């Protein structure tokens, strides 16, 4: 089951952000647009360990057709892709910078993301750095905080529903063929 073309409910569950911050950094329409328009995702902090959360997310996104570029200074190759020590070393354009690093490192990562002209910055679940978010947003990037890119993709493509989770998607319109 894919999502219908109808409206999505506001998803206010499970975030430490205030309602105003959720409006800025967790807008469901903005997240859906980002998932639709993104092709290349650099994952900063992608682990080489297949049992880590970042590997779960990376392998899922790869399976869903995104090009995943690992950023990890301690690995040569992850998920069959060459790993780079930092964003600046990536020799091709990046649409989305997805971050699995502690909040304290995120301002520096945001600056790198701006420098390589990425279109969006996405800090994973439970990673909140408002200074990094404001810096990236001020420089024209779409910013998502405290959300998981895999969960959000799965939410809008019917997968999360299969696991019995509350997607907050309500629609009487027929689903699209995926």
């Amino acid at each position, binding site marked *: 089951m894919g999502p219908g073309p109808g409206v999505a409910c506001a998803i*206010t569950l499970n975030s430490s952000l205030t309602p105003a911050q959720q409006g800025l950094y967790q807008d469901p329409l903005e997240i859906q647009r980002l998932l639709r328009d993104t092709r290349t995702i650099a994952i900063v902090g992608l682990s080489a360990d297949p049992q880590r959360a970042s590997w779960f997310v990376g392998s899922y996104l790869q399976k869903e057709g995104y090009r995943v570029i690992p950023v990890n200074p301690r690995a040569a190759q992850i998920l069959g892709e060459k790993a780079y020590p930092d964003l600046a070393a990536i020799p091709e354009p990046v649409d989305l910078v997805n971050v699995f690093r502690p909040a304290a490192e995120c301002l520096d990562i945001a600056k790198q993301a701006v420098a390589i002209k990425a279109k969006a910055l996405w800090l994973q679940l439970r990673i909140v750095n408002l200074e990094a978010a404001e810096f990236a947003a001020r420089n024209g990037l779409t910013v998502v905080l405290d959300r998981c890119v895999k969960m959000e993709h799965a939410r809008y493509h019917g997968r999360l529903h299969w696991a*019995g989770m509350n997607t907050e998607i309500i629609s009487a*319109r027929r689903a699209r063929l995926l």
Partner: protein
Amino acid sequence: MSDAAEPRKFGFETRMVHAGHIPDAVTGARAAPIYQTTSFVFDDTEQAAQLFELKQYGNIYTRISNPTTAVFEERIASLEGATGAVATASGMAAQLVTFMTLLQAGDEIVASSQLYGGSITQLVHTLKKLSIGVRFVDPSRIGEWEAAITPKTKALYGETIGNPRGAILDIELVAALGAANGIPLIVDSTMATPALCRPIEHGATLVVHSATKFIGGHGTAIGGVLLDSGRFDFSRFPSIAAPSAAYHDLRFFDTFGHYGFLMKARAETVRDTGACLSPFNSFLLIQGLETLSLRMERQSDSALRVARFLESHPAVAWVAFAGLPSHPDHALAMKYLPKGPGAVFSFGLKARSGAGARAAGRRFIESLQLFSHLANIGDVRSLVIHPASTTHQQLTDEELARGGVSPELIRLSIGLENVEDLLWDLDQALLAPLR
């Protein structure tokens, strides 16, 4: 003020009939289809491996997940304001799966003494076999809850509306005590359903239901469900946070965040105990959810009418319904269940000349014409039972007294019949001559 671009938060009744089911792209079927299948074909070996390792979401085997059951799960999660749900074979299974996911040998539960008799036997006898201890407390005394907590306590447990004397749990107070001690509060909300009370809104961490009752509503299917608020920090909770030996040291909380508890409950506990819900029963429970608020409001209103009638009847000694000002928890009921404290309550018969309360109870039940004498609650039909001789008969006298069950106690579950007809039936049975 409306804004077309603003995502809308839909109301309860809208979610009752729509949440969790979008007409599928291929057939456009409007009602949720019944996927009566044990298993699901893989795309290829790599996808199969990724599904088994939980790296992709998808269906493998109906013991773990099923598309019809997923509609039921998401719908009830949406109605409770939960992050998700796992459906189980019964309400007892939902409770057991919750405990087995959360607890390990040596852990303890602090539980309200005002519980369904089957829950008490599960806590006392079955969990004992797993080396899990339980301490019962008077739910209305927060000091008893606090005093019963030890370093081994890993869960607090109570019922929104206690069975069978209608004690109302002060969810906010007990949840706050749990939060202060890093212990999740589990609430069995079977008697309330999300139409009357949503425990997560009051701070409960986990909610369990016997869906057999008001959720199904029609007495057609046994089922249960457990739900997670997604708000509890399980990062220091060993059973959820520690590497799982059953999944190559996968750390469920670290990997799945607020879905960690439910993913573990599904992928480990339900998978390994086999306590899954049948897709056909899921379908029946979905049908029940579609009219939930309508039934709960009508049945609660009728229950209040019946309770008032009994309270003024000369053959009745007492009525324990939190909707009546005479009930000790009436104020709590007004706070947590403003639409009515459900449709199940108990009352006591007066002893009659020549017969004790027990014999009077037997005569009453055998004289009823419309109330069905059976061991269930939450049907569209009105039901009656004498717990001391049925649901609670395995309890010792001491456990019986602690649960507030006396020999003259009759439990009613009020259905959708014409309420005047119900009053007529009760009156004629109360006055039926002793043989």
